[in-house]
Structures are given as structure tokens and as C-alpha cells.
């Protein structure tokens, strides 16, 4: 569904993505992991067209992301930190987002109802707490029933009840055969919600396969220790570089 082909991106001198290749298929749920600054959010933003790669191409469906913007109709995106116009009310924000996709008439209001956003629709966005904003972001990502869901740290900042609601929703969408891409540092969430793991390290794909395969390779029976081992391996790889050999 999404194929990332030879994407490279530099921010100034810093090479964030190096000749990046990845395939995302419908029906799978991907956990995108990596230390801070490894290029997770950059990858997501490149797919969404917010960051423009130096070279390479991405296709969503069969459509290249260059030029035509219609491919974004298939994507529901929940940003890491959602900021919205302060003077806009929740209700207005939702009607605006609906207005952006006039041809979609059926809305998925499950999260709106579960988070009781309807009762707050006259509150302006500027007065909302961080958690409520996250709820708004989540509800917006699912609103149009998109085939692809990209969730950047979806559970950060939510209260435990909301986290459970959101996780149940993600699981439900996954069973409906959607493509789900989640970044998070909360490994237990990822283990629950995903079946494939992608580990990025310094702009390169270090691991990309099923979670079973990950456990087998690392020889661990549980997800967290398996990831921990993966991280140790990346560090070893790093320490073997001549630059750091004196350490």
C-alpha cells in the first residue's frame, strides 16, 4: 500500500534518512521504533508530504506523493502534539475537517462519542488541556474511516481510560484490515497493537519483520527484552565504528 523507495533526507549537515526502503501492506499493523532523533517522525512526515525528501519517491496505493495531493484522503494522521487555532471551537474544527473532504459523507463518530467531545463542542481549542487535545486529534484521525492510520505517539498524554478506549479502537480497525503505523516508546502498547516491528537507527532500517521473527532472532520470548536486545546490538554496531574505538 505504501512503498518508500530510496528516500534520503538531510537537515543541514545531519543526514536523517539514508537511502530508506520500506513496504507497508494493508492488513498489517506496524510498530515504528527507534531512539529519539532516529528519523521516525521525519519518515511519517515525508509520507504525509510535510517534509520533502532530497531524493527517492514514495507511492501510496499506486500514486506517487509528488504533485497530486489526493492520496492524503486515504490517510488518517494523529500528530505527536496537536495544535489547533486557539479561537476555533471543537465543533468548528470538526466541521472544517469535514469540509476538507466534501466527498466523504459517512463519518466514524465512535471516538467522538467515547471521548464525549460532542458535549464540549462549544469549547474553544485554546482552552483545552493537552489530553483533551490528544482526544480531538485521535477522533479526527479516525473520523473519515481512512484505509491508512498513522499515529505518532497516540497514547502520550491521555488518561488511562482514554488510552484503553483508543487502544480498543485501534485493535478494531486493525481487524477490519487497515494499515496501521504507530510510533511509541511504550513497548507494552506496541506489543498489544502491532504484528510487525520496524526498528530505525540513525536513519537506516535496522530491523523490519514480524514480531515473532524479532523474538526468534533475539532469542527472547517477550517483546520488551527483544527490543532491548535490538537496542544493544545497535549500540555495539555504533561502538565498533572507528570514530568511537577509543571508548
Amino acid at each position, binding site marked *: 500500500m505504501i512503498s518508500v523507495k530510496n528516500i534520503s533526507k538531510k537537515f543541514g549537515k545531519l543526514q536523517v534518512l539514508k537511502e530508506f526502503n520500506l513496504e507497508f501492506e494493508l492488513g498489517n499493523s506496524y510498530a515504528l521504533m527507534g531512539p529519539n532523533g532516529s528519523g521516525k517522525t521525519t519518515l511519517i512526515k515525508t509520507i504525509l508530504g*510535510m517534509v*520533502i525528501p532530497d531524493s527517492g519517491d514514495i507511492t501510496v496505493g499506486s500514486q506517487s506523493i509528488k504533485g497530486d495531493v489526493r492520496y*492524503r484522503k486515504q490517510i488518517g494522521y494523529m500528530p505527536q502534539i496537536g*495544535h489547533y*487555532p486557539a479561537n476555533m471551537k471543537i465543533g*468548528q474544527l470538526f466541521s472544517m475537517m469535514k469540509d*476538507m473532504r466534501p466527498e466523504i459523507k459517512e463519518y466514524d463518530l465512535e471516538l467522538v462519542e467515547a471521548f464525549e467531545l460532542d458535549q464540549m463542542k462549544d469549547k474553544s481549542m485554546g482552552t483545552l488541556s493537552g489530553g483533551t487535545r490528544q482526544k480531538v486529534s485521535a477522533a479526527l484521525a479516525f473520523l473519515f474511516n481512512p484505509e491508512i492510520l498513522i499515529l505518532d505517539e497516540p497514547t502520550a498524554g491521555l488518561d488511562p481510560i482514554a488510552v484503553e478506549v483508543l487502544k480498543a479502537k485501534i485493535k478494531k480497525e486493525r481487524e477490519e484490515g487497515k494499515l496501521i503505523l504507530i510510533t511509541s516508546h511504550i513497548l507494552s502498547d506496541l506489543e498489544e497493537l502491532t504484528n510487525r516491528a520496524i526498528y530505525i537507527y540513525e536513519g537506516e532500517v535496522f530491523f523490519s519483520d514480524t514480531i515473532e521473527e524479532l523474538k526468534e532472532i533475539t532469542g527472547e520470548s517477550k517483546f520488551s527484552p527483544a527490543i532491548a536486545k535490538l537496542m544493544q546490538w545497535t549500540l555495539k554496531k555504533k561502538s565498533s565504528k572507528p570514530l568511537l574505538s577509543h571508548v
Partner: protein
Amino acid sequence: MFKLLKYALYDILKSRFAIIYTVFLALVAISIYQVSDDLSKVSLSLMNIMILFIPLIAAVFATTHFYNNLEFIELMLAQPVKRIHVFLSQLFAVVIMLSLSILLGFGLPMLLWGADGSLLTLLAVGVVLSSVFAGFAFLASVLTRDKAKAIGISLALWIYFSLVYDGLVLYVIYSFADYPLEKTTLALVMLNPVDLGRILMLMQLDISALMGYTGAFFQQFFSSGLGILIAVGALLIWMLFPNFLAMRVFKKRDF
């Protein structure tokens, strides 16, 4: 595009700043009208205030607006809408808000106490200068990643065009006082939107006689059809060029 503009405008018009700015302009206009009954004096005083403050406020407001809306711009970029439309909707929203404030703040007192050609030119020049400096501000904003830096650049441009440039022109005129300088000064005026606006205004008043031979030359130039055409053309270029440049950068910018 129009949907985006509608929402951007809605957000900006509801902000407290739009109201404060309009009220401020109205208070300035009302107090000047109270002081004098002579319309040309009113228009001269209003011009002096306007030419200094309107570019400053346009530059600072447009920069802060861009940075305050950065996350909203990011949100829009993840939607199925074109980048150019996102940019233009933000720009037009700022320009429309600044223009409406001028038209309401200065226009209402004019409706009450009367206006002449020079006061109407004043409104037009105010709108044009707002767009020019909003363009500079957007250009500064898309080129930097730091609000403080962008405001710094906007302010530097304002200082340059409002204060420093006149000093440079005076220096040139004094240094080459022995030569005929009408055409040179005219060309120098075209290179500064603020001066261009000011001279377009002054030409509407009778005080150009006070400016000596150059004034007479300007009077002749700006009262001819071709002169007006060139002046308006130069202002149009000043309005479009920074905005166009900012749009080009915005299209390639990373968010």
C-alpha cells in the same frame, strides 16, 4: 482554497488583536479630526502616523501570526489540500484583516466627518503598505525556523525602508547637489514602497510646492497618466514580489 481562507479569516477576525488594532486606528483618526477642520491637514497628520505605524504593525503581526499558526499550517498540510492554497489562505487572511482594520478604523471617521481625494488615497496606500510588509514578514517567516529571528528580519526591513533609506537618499542628494537629480530621486523613490506611498499622498496635497524644483517635477510626473501607471506598477511589484518569493520557499519548506 476558499474554504481554507474562510477558516483562516474566521480565526484571525475573532482574535483580540484585530479588534484592538481597529479601535486604535479609529481613535487616532477621531482625535485628529477633532483637532482640525481642514481636511488636508487631517490627511497630512494621518499620513505621518500611518506611514510609520502601519508597516510596523503589518510586519510584526504577520510574522507572529505565521508562527502562531505554524501547527495549524502543519495540520492543513496533512490534509488533501495543495500547499499553495494553504500558504495563500494564510497570507490573504492576514492582508484582509489588516486592510479591514484600516478601512474601518480610518474609514468610519471619514464617513462621519467627510473625506477628500487625499484621504481616499491614504486608505489605498495603507492597504498596499500592509500587503507589502505582510509579504516581507511571510518571506522572513518561511526563511527562518525561529520566531525571534523572523521578527528581527521583519523589523530590520521596516527600519530600513522607513528610516535608513531616507537617510541614504538624503546623503545621495547632498553629495551630488551640483547635478540635476530629479530622475535619480524618482528612481530612488521607486525602490522604496514606503516613500512611494508617501509621495503619492503628498502629490494629492498642495504642499508639493514646498519641495522646490524636485517637487514640481514630481508633481508633473505623478499627475500624468504614465506617471501614475508607473507608480502603481512599482507598488504592485512591491506587493507581489516578496509574496511570490515567500510562496516559492513555502512550497519546498519542511515542516
